[in-house]
């Protein structure tokens, strides 16, 4: 296993190098298959690791020392346990399917090989993030995925909106990176080590719930919140939809944005030791879940709706890991990767069919033209809303809501928020489905929509299978060596809460059906009746505008002040003032250098007399001195 773990990393890195260095020379077919194949190879290695992890394998292997200075050691070690092996399986598995899909989706694009180079680099950075066994390499991977996210959001660099979105995402992510780096500082300052195993074994030296451990966990949380687009650093994710759709599927739905969840789960020993920080995680998750779901109800861009649903679902995961239900959070991470990647890729097919139009109001009646996309999107929608038994989302989401509602205090309140979110999720997802895919199945379709290529539909069908039956994968048992036993709930509570969630989802569905399928005029009426509230939601609670007023504009004003006032007047003024003073003075003093020997002689004599006079004066031979 200690040789397999680096191989998982090296395959995407090799794919990246081939496509980055020789991509322009390679034919598209080769470029695409190198990109997808390297991830496929990585997936095979990950499967091999899985078989050994199931057999109880667990390694923390150091391969080399990156640097060493005094007692500061940074090894390159990989940490493979059930948690990280689950992550790499999902990353490489779902990643492989998305790479396959991209071969079809990006076929017409100029930057074909560049796209695969970035995607492979992303997978490499993400795997590094997950497999790293110490904080330094974790930060390296963490920054790496942020960089790749930036590169891929701004992939179409001739679109101003894409470039702006990329910059926004990068800035927000760097806020998180800074939090991570500070967390690593504080850990090293207090524990003198940076590798996970030692940190985990020494964390109990710190006082439980003390300032230090709480500070560490909150700083880590800053990184997690930025990466996972949770409140208040969430605004970059909807804008990130400017990138190509496979990017949205891979990075901004299935993998990178869940890195925050992974981080909290990986550091669960730390969070168990800092209850305040853990509660903060839960509250951020619960509030974000509800907040994003409400925004999702009022958007009209198909990818943005999915982006807000991603935020909302990651909110669920944060809630889960915040209340200590780590296995439930990771379970939802896996099922979410299935159904959200599926939803995004299906949405990509629809967007292609409509020639890059993303407005759901222009779509409709897609069953005839795009049958595979239609049915798989329906499966994805059912899965995210938690349709019982035959969808994965039912099991994973229920587990989170159950865990939250079994808690007390603020966690219980967040559980109620999650329950409400379940209803809202059903509402906005079926609203999307009904408007975009069309409810009136039997009407004739005058348009000639074309289903996507098989290489785009086959990965979606595979993911649909995962989204349907993935709930039966015993993730909790698999993760038991890491997180221990989950608390048992009674059978009655189990079914009662499941029923409660179902009722919430059913109400959401019924509302969506009523408003958008049966009585569209009612939806319009409600829109006017809810006037200001609807406007608030449609404008995403004016968070972007708020940040613009509070941060961006004062930032620009400060910049203008610096460049127009401080720089020319104060800094340049001081520098130029000194220079001018010296120039003027030297112009005066220069005149004493006449080149005439006799004038120098006079100065010398005067100086000599002055020195003698000074000596005489200090020794008391001159009358002016009192002593």
């Amino acid at each position, binding site marked *: 296993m200690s040789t397999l773990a680096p191989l998982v990393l090296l395959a995407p890195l090799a794919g990246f190098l081939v496509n980055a260095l020789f991509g322009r020379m390679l034919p598209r077919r080769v470029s695409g298959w190198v990109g997808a194949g390297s991830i496929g190879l990585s997936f095979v290695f990950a499967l091999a690791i899985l078989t050994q992890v199931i057999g109880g394998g667990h390694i923390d292997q150091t391969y080399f020392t990156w640097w060493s200075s005094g007692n500061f050691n940074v090894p390159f070690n990989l940490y493979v346990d059930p948690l990280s092996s689950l992550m790499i399986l999902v990353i490489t598995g779902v990643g492989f399917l998305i790479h396959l899909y991209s071969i079809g989706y990006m076929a017409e694009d100029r930057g074909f090989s560049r796209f695969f180079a970035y995607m492979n680099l992303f997978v490499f950075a993400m795997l590094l993030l997950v497999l790293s066994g110490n904080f330094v390499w974790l930060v390296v991977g963490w920054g790496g995925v942020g960089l790749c996210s930036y590169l891929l959001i701004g992939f179409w660099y001739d679109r101003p909106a894409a470039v702006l979105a990329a910059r926004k995402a990068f800035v927000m992510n760097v806020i998180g990176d800074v939090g991570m780096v500070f967390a690593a500082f504080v850990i090293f300052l207090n524990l003198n080590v940076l590798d996970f195993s030692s940190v985990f074994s020494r964390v109990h030296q710190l006082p439980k719930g003390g300032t230090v451990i709480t500070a560490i966990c909150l700083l880590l949380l800053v990184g997690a919140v930025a990466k996972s687009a949770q409140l208040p650093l969430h605004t970059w994710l909807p804008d990130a939809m400017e990138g190509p759709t496979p990017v949205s599927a891979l990075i901004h739905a299935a993998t990178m944005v869940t890195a925050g969840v992974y981080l909290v789960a990986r550091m669960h020993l730390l969070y168990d030791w800092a209850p305040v920080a853990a509660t903060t995680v839960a509250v951020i998750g619960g509030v974000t879940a509800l907040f994003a779901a409400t925004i999702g109800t009022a958007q009209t861009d198909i990818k943005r709706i999915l982006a807000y649903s991603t935020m909302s679902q990651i909110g669920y995961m944060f809630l889960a890991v915040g209340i200590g239900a780590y296995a439930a959070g990771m379970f939802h991470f896996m099922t979410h990767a299935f159904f959200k990647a599926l939803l995004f890729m299906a949405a990509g097919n629809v967007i292609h069919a409509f020639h890059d139009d993303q407005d759901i109001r222009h779509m409709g009646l897609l069953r005839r033209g795009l049958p595979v996309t239609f049915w798989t999107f329906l499966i994805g929608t059912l899965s995210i809303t938690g349709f019982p038994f035959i969808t994965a989302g039912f099991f994973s989401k229920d587990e989170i809501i159950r865990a939250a509602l079994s808690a007390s205090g603020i966690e219980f309140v967040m559980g109620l928020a999650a329950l409400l979110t379940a209803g809202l999720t059903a509402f906005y997802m079926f609203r999307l489905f009904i408007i975009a895919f069309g409810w009136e199945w039997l009407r004739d379709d005058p348009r000639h929509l074309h289903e996507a290529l098989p290489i785009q539909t086959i990965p979606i069908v595979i993911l649909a299978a995962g989204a349907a039956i993935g709930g039966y994968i015993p993730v909790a048992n698999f993760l038991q060596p890491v997180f221990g036993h989950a608390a048992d709930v009674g059978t009655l509570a189990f079914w009662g809460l499941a029923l409660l969630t179902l009722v919430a989802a059913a109400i959401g569905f019924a509302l969506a059906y009523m408003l958008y399928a049966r009585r569209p005029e009612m939806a319009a009426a409600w829109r006017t009746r809810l006037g200001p509230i609807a406007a608030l939601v449609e404008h995403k609670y004016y968070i972007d505008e708020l940040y613009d007023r509070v941060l961006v504009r004062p930032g620009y004003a400060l910049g203008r002040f610096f460049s127009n006032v401080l720089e020319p007047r104060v800094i340049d003024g001081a520098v130029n003032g000194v220079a001018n003073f010296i120039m003027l003075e030297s112009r005066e003093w220069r005149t004493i*250098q*006449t*080149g*005439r*020997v*006799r004038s120098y*002689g*006079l100065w010398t*004599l005067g100086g000599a007399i002055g020195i003698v006079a000074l000596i005489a004066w200090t020794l008391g031979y001159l009358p002016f001195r009192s002593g």
Partner: protein
Amino acid sequence: MQIPAYSFLLLSGGMFTLGAVGFLVRRNPLVIFMCIELMLNAVNLAFAAMSRYLNSLDGVVFAFLVITVAAAEVVVGIAIIVQVYRAGRDMDVDELDLMKE
């Protein structure tokens, strides 16, 4: 009869003043050199006199040093004067001010 030390010092001071004033007012380099010699020897006289007066050889040693330096300085100085003369310039130190550049 012991000649008092201050008379030597007066003579030395007078010679030095003569040399200094000569240095400042004359423009012929040769005369200026002679004035420098006068100042150096005024100092030498003071050294020698005080050496005798204080019964110490320190002053005499210093005087010898000054004589050596004066000899070396004259060699360099006369060489410069000769070069200037050969270059056809006037023997006027006020005209020789190119070193300020």
